[in-house]
């Protein structure tokens, strides 16, 4: 049976603990589903450390572990808790190498989830990390991407924020970019919206549109490849980006970077600018395939006028 992303994360964590004598910190790790089954069943003696319910201090304590070279993994079980956890990571760990010549490499695993979980726990919150210097941000949704991200981390002394999504843990496939010249539009999806964007692309291409896709998981530093630039420049309508963070979050920053380099219009779809409740009607879901399809149809109609 082919392995899932869940299994790969578990294996990487195991290796990190056993081979590299790393540490894994977080709250409610040893139990409650072992972080959605991504954590091997190990305990403090193996380096899996249960932290107290003190999110602000915890971010600082893990920074301390990073400063003394333990390359800690730091699990934030819902990205909504980023708001508390990020403080000493972005203000200390991320700056430590530049100011004090003391790197604090850590691998933050921030789990995002779909809607239906209320105002805080819903979706992704990486924008608050994004603007700060000294951090690298990845959002791997596949096994290869995750393994690459970990490898990069082990060859680096920076702080890595790895934005995961619970819905991707069952994933077994790898995504492929589909790019050629003279497309109508190019999708550039992030995180879990990549699954829906694929569906939308397939549907639209069967229905007379020419839609390409560039999957994004290396978010900071964000490098727009030369090939991508020329493909985007040759497109009719530009780019539609999708994300499961708020629409006024990093997606706008990235859209602007793309726009600067291509002079093409970059449309964005993310979480709506509203608070989330718990029901289908009140929650704030990331853009679905249908929403992506409708947006592209709308762009096309508008442009024709």
């Amino acid at each position: 049976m082919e392995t899932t992303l869940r299994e790969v994360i578990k294996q990487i964590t195991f290796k990190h603990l056993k081979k590299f004598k790393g540490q894994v910190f977080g709250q409610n790790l040893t139990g409650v589903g072992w972080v959605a089954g991504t954590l091997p069943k190990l305990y403090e003696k193996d380096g899996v450390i249960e932290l107290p319910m003190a999110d602000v201090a915890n971010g600082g304590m893990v920074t301390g572990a990073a400063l003394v070279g333990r390359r800690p993994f730091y699990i934030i079980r819902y990205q909504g808790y980023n708001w508390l956890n990020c403080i000493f990571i972005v203000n200390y760990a991320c700056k430590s190498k530049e100011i004090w010549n003391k790197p604090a490499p850590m691998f933050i695993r921030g789990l995002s989830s779909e809607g239906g979980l209320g105002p805080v726990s819903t979706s992704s919150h990486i924008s608050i990390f994004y603007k700060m210097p000294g951090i690298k941000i990845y959002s791997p949704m596949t096994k290869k991407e995750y393994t690459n991200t970990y490898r990069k981390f082990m060859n680096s002394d920076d702080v890595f924020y790895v934005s995961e999504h619970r819905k991707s843990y069952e994933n077994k496939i790898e995504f492929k970019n589909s790019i050629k010249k003279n497309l109508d539009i190019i999708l550039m999806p992030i995180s879990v919206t990549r699954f829906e964007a694929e569906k939308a692309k397939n549907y639209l291409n069967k229905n007379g549109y020419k839609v390409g896709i560039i999957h994004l998981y290396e978010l900071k530093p964000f490098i727009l490849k030369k090939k991508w630039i020329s493909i985007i420049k040759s497109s009719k309508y530009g780019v539609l980006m999708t994300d499961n963070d708020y629409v006024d979050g990093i997606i706008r920053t990235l859209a602007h970077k793309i726009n600067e380099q291509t002079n093409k219009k970059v449309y964005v779809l993310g979480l709506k600018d509203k608070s989330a409740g718990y029901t289908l009607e009140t929650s704030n879901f990331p853009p679905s395939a249908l929403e992506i399809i409708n947006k592209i149809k709308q762009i096309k109609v508008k442009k024709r006028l």
Partner: protein
Amino acid sequence: MSYKNYRLKTFEKASLCRNFENEVFKRVNEKIINFPVYLSAGQEYVPSSIAQIVKDKKQKPLIFGQHRGHSIYLSFGGNIVELIDELLGKKTGCTGGMGGSLSINSNKINMFGHEGLMGSNACMGVGACFSSAKPTIVFLGDASVEEDYVLASLSWAAKKELPILFVVEDNNYAVLTEKKDRRDWKAKDVAKAFKLESYDIDDQPKNIFSVLKKNLFKKPIFINVNTKRLFWHSGAGVDEEVKGDRLTLEKKFLGKKAEKIHSNIKKKIENLWKQRLEK
């Protein structure tokens, strides 16, 4: 080491700090230093006493200070010239010219820099101590100990029985707000509630010596040391004359020997500043 000898050695360290801060005071007034400077004059007996004990025990702890850190740096053997250069914004400074006064560090003496969020060093210190199992000292102020994340760090250090020392340099002030206007509890009592061995003492070296000589780095210890800040919170100025300055009292007690040490150090520091300014 006998207590008498310890007391003299501690005086030497404290004198170095005081003379250094007096020189910085001048440079701030002369506008040679233009960024915010946090002078520790008056409080130097706290780090000096501890540094002397640590030295006698031949320990080299990880040190996590906060903004008022010159005396910590100097007491634990940080390079003087590099601190002068740092305050002058030079690349040859202990923090490569990035540290100003607030964010100084020294990898040589294991002193970690501070980023400016008061009390954050408690969290980093506890994490570093936990993950390295190395002896660690965290210096706080009477205000930073009020930060929620500091309290959480104390709790975890106690739970994990870390070889750590928390030191509160209690000068009674958060900038100019007095302790009585901020809280109705004693830091020592809260630390005790977390099951830390805790003390509330004044900054006589004798007191610091006696509470630390037995258990330092054998278990987590918390000491709140009452001390007096001579100058403004930030910058160079005096709010009111301070009575009972520890250094003056100790110098008087130790007599001629101490006076000589003090004036020699004064000359040395003045010369060093002159040299670095001429460079």
